[in-house]
Structures are given as structure tokens and as C-alpha cells.
């Protein structure tokens, strides 16, 4: 039973990591790709490591991997935040249908407005 649970968690986690990497390829611009690099990648890591801990049945490994999970929860959003912010400030092209309010673009110090930008919202 433990093996079954561990294997299912491992499979689910690896599948999410695969989805995250396909997302990096398929999504249209840097910003949408950061979505793929944060959410499914984080959940995938959590599921994989939980599977490993259950499979090993070892408390000391569990505590170590717990630290890894906490680190991932802290670093994944911070990394995405820094990449997204610098990319925007550097004028990285947004996908053409992205809606950006003028005030928002000014506040973020963007050098290029999105082609589809308009006021409202």
C-alpha cells in the first residue's frame, strides 16, 4: 500500500514537472512562462518529495526534504518576481493581446507599452 501511494505521488509529481517544462516551450511570452515555472513546478516538487519520503519511510530524510519544500515555497515566487520585474523594466515584449493600464505601465517603469494596451480595467 505504501509503495502504491509513493509511486502515485512520484508519478503525479513528475507529470507536473513535465507539464511545467512543456509550458515553458508552449506559452507565448516570458510572463506566461513564469506561471508554468512557478505553480506546477512547485506542486510537482512537493508531490515528488512526499512520494520519496513515504517510499523511504525514513524520518530523517523526511525532515531534510521538508526543508527543501519550504525553500522551494520561498524561492520559486521570489525568482519569478525578480525575473518578471526585470524583464518588464527591460522592455521585454509582452504577448500582443496583453492588457496593460497606462498607470500600471508607468508605475512599473516599463519602457515599452504592450501593443494592445489601453486604458480601463
Amino acid at each position, binding site marked *: 500500500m505504501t509503495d502504491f501511494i509513493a509511486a502515485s505521488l512520484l508519478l503525479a509529481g513528475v507529470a*507536473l514537472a513535465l*507539464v*511545467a517544462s*512543456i*509550458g515553458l516551450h*508552449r*506559452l*507565448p*511570452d516570458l*510572463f*506566461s512562462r*513564469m*506561471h*508554468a515555472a*512557478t*505553480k*506546477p513546478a*512547485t*506542486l*510537482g516538487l512537493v508531490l515528488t518529495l512526499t512520494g520519496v519520503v513515504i517510499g523511504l519511510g525514513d524520518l*530523517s*530524510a523526511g*525532515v*531534510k526534504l*521538508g*526543508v527543501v519544500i519550504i525553500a522551494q*515555497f*520561498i524561492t*520559486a*515566487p*521570489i525568482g*519569478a*518576481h525578480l525575473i*518578471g*520585474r526585470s524583464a*518588464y523594466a527591460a522592455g521585454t515584449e*509582452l*504577448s500582443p*493581446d*496583453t*492588457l*496593460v*493600464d497606462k*498607470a*500600471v*505601465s508607468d*508605475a*512599473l517603469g516599463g519602457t515599452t507599452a504592450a501593443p494592445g494596451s489601453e486604458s480601463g*480595467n
Partner: protein
Amino acid sequence: MSQRLLSLTWMTLVWMALWGDISVANALGGIVVGSAILLIVPPRGLSSGLTLRPFSALRLGAYFSWQLVEASAIVAWEVITPVSRLNQAIVAVPLRTRSRVLAALVGNMVSLTPGTLTLDVLGDPPVLYVHVLHLRDGKQILASIHTLEALALRAFSTEEHQ
């Protein structure tokens, strides 16, 4: 002072967790490394106005975990299915808290909840600039972030709200 002690305790615990072993030697090692870190990077007293309400924190944790599952499912669906339902936008979301620690916490959590990614936090009181994957209704994005913020405030804040 108590904040330094708390940081030191936390770092010692993490140190022992990383060694995967509770022993006097590891505890001492953790205290030495933790003290060195506190000496090199002194804490800047950011945590004033914060408390911990365990029950509310658990609720926040449960809500956030479910949101992470939902967020992953939405991104996965967008990636796997051939049709694109993307409708991207960058929106400004004013927060109600003035605490920079809580703004950082909410900003981080927003990046792991459905369809939203924090690009920047500016101003005082802080405003989140959020990249949205599937914009349908701006009000709904605001409402979901404010729900998250309200749960975080209930769990950690001593500020007066509402």
C-alpha cells in the same frame, strides 16, 4: 533581542533538520553557524506588528494548498490542450496591510495561486502589480487576492482592519 533569539532558534532547527539528526553536536554547530549569520546579516526589525494565531494560520495554509493545486491544474490545462484561452493582463492590486513582511508574504502566495503572478510591490501602503493569465473580470482577481490577504492578516497581523 527576542527576535534574534527566535531567528537563532529557527536557524538551529533548520541546521539540525538538514543534518537529519538531533544531537548536542548538531545543536552547537547550528548555534555557531546561526550566530555567525546573525552577526554578518543583522535582522532589521521588520517583524514588528506581527503575531501568530495558530488556528487562522492553519486555515490560511489549507486554503493556500488548495489554491496551489487549482493553480497547477489551470496552467496544466492551458499547456496540454491545443486551444489557447489566454487573456493576459497586468493589474494593480492595492493591499490593505501596511506591513512589508505581510506584503511580501501575500505577494509570494499570489505567485502560487491560480492565474496570478506578482511582478512588483511598490508604494506605501503597498500595491501589488500582478500578471494575470486568464483575465475575465478584474474585480474577481482583486477579490481573490483580497481573500488571501484577509486570511493572512487574520493569521499574522496585529494591525486594526475593518
